[in-house]
């Protein structure tokens, strides 16, 4: 049961990059894209373990700007959706609802 509980937390903390709120920081966990695309993103610094922060939205809404190791990189939502990150700080309200206290 203990094991299941841990899994629940993990699933809740690992979110697609696109789910971050403006200004929120996270750590890249993995990229679920075809190897060619994954490799391409990794070369510019989007590697597992890298720090990302959602720093701003482009004027027309979509490409969003993320700060990756101090570099501002713009990604479209269609790409950011496939980059899975670990939120740096677990917020109170994302603790599994199944756990009362």
């Amino acid at each position, binding site marked *: 049961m203990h094991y299941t509980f841990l899994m629940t937390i993990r699933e809740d903390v690992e979110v697609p990059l696109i789910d971050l709120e403006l200004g929120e920081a996270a750590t890249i966990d993995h990229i679920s894209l075809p190897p060619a695309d994954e490799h391409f993103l990794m070369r*510019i610094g989007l590697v*597992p*373990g890298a720090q990302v922060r959602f720093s701003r939205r482009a*004027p*027309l809404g979509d*490409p969003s700007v993320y700060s990756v*190791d*101090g570099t501002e*990189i*713009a990604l479209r939502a269609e790409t950011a959706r496939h980059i899975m990150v670990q939120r740096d700080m677990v917020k109170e309200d994302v603790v599994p609802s199944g756990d009362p206290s």
Partner: protein
Amino acid sequence: MSSILTNGCCDTPSGPVIAIDEKTPRASGYEIRTVALIGPPNSGKSTLFNRLTRLRQKVGNYPGVTVEQRVGLLAGADHPIQIIDLPGVYSLTPYSDDERVAVNVLTGKMDGMPPPDAVLLVLDVTHLSRHLVLAAPVIALGLPTLVLLNMADVFAKGGGSLDVLKLATELGAPVAMVSATQETGLEAVDRFLRQGHEPSPSAVLPVLQDLRQCRKWAGQVGNRVDYQPHLPSAWSSRLDDIFLHKLWGPLIFILVVGAVFQTVFGLGQPLSNAFQDLLTRIGQQAAPLIPDGILRSLVLNGLWKGVSSVLVFLPQILLLFFFIGLLEDSGYLARAALIADRTMRGVGLNGKAFIPLLSAYACAVPAIMATRTIENKRDRIATILIAPFMTCSARLPIYTLLIAAFIPERPVVGVFLGSRAFAMLSLYVLGFLAAIITARLLKSSVLKSAAAPFVLELPAYRWPTWQSIGLRLFDRARVFLRQAGTIILAVSLLVWVLTNLPLHNGGVPQLEQSVIAHLGHGIEPVIRPLGFNWKIGVGLLTSVIAREVIVGTLGTIYGTDPATHAMTLQNALRQDLTFAGAMALLVFFAFAMQCTSTLAIVRRETNSWKWPVFQFVYMTVVAYTAAFAVNQVLSKLLK
């Protein structure tokens, strides 16, 4: 690696500057002759290359691939040292053409390239943890390597710091803090190259093919050398608050584009006129020096008229490149790309097509070469096919000429936009629309494919330096003048000869009797419906070589014609062409593929004749149809 020499004479603001192993033996007979310069994109590698070579450089292409090859000679060296500027790469995993070229050159497997004796590795110290990833595979090659930590000035100003000596020990290679823009720390390069090094296999570094591992290693090294990242200046972010603002962002984008056009044509026109006066005066001054007769006619009416009618556009072309350079170097161009991305996506194009398409406004040839950053083959071909629709600078001569001759200057939007700038802007929009409609058609039919991820790096805003912009302008002017001195000169000569043949009773024939007139009259039936006369027809024929050639050709034809030879080309055209015909000619040039250099590069990039032939036929058909429609409609309306 026990003894490390600290060099105190460098004036980079960040303390210890270079660490070189003192015990490295001064190798007798081992001289560095070839150095490879490598670094990630945006590491300031090109600026450094320009600083080190001081324009003693040659730009070409690597055989078989489309990667640009830049080779220069180190300025101020005792013996010639060749510097090879490798393409910007993030890793040495041979994944793209750029990386394959980098690996092949570094390992001496590139045909016609000597294996390098040493490597200069340029890393942006403000992004060390990301850029250090490249250090492991490069140093592991075992060549004598000097690691240059560029942007030392920005890094120090932002409060960043690291232990350079420790980093040198970690990497097993000398490390120097430099600033390519401020030209500080560069004497480390001289010292490194002069010293002479034996290639020594590096022991400390693991050969890492896996980027994940490399990144991890880079992070650990960063910790061990007490790397403190600099705080990015607050004003870069504050500027983005404005330039990427929901409302102001797009508004400023439009204003910037508008202002550039207004200045290029508002300020450029008087400059061009003044330049034209100067060129005319030179011709008049030179006239008495040449014996009267056929020779004077050849030199003045043939060659000088032809060449100078193209030279006149140099001020405007330089002005445009000045603004493109300003926008690119300041960092605004990347923001513009971000704002424009939504539009690009609408036509089904990879967002990375934006930068090549933007440079196509200058010239389609480098733009088509720039498409190699697009990994997706179909997206790349689509971008190559639409790039020549963007209004390149070679169209400016004919555009400016016809607009100045046929469109009176009137305010359109107050003082901000006059009718001439508006006409010019419309032509740019027209080309852009043709490009996106073509892209749409291609991407939904023959070149359909899945989208590749769009990634755009937003560099921090910087003050553009005069040297860097000056260098671009010099480069452009050189290319333009070479063109004027070779192709346009040759075409002017040919046109002059054809206007003076066949000899009539031993003398010059009437223009109507000349070979050129026969050629022009030959195609006249085809172009008559577009509102063009035979002289324009000759211009269309010669401009298949390059768009700006038409102006030189017209200059020569009207210059030889006794009826118009005293007039400026503008006045001559005004007499000879209807308004509808002039507008049709503008539209024809907006769409037509009049450029052999572009066709040649498309042939090389796509590695087949299929695409350049398709492109030429398609664009010519579009141009003919559109010009036909414009002439017919305008002639009816203005009757």
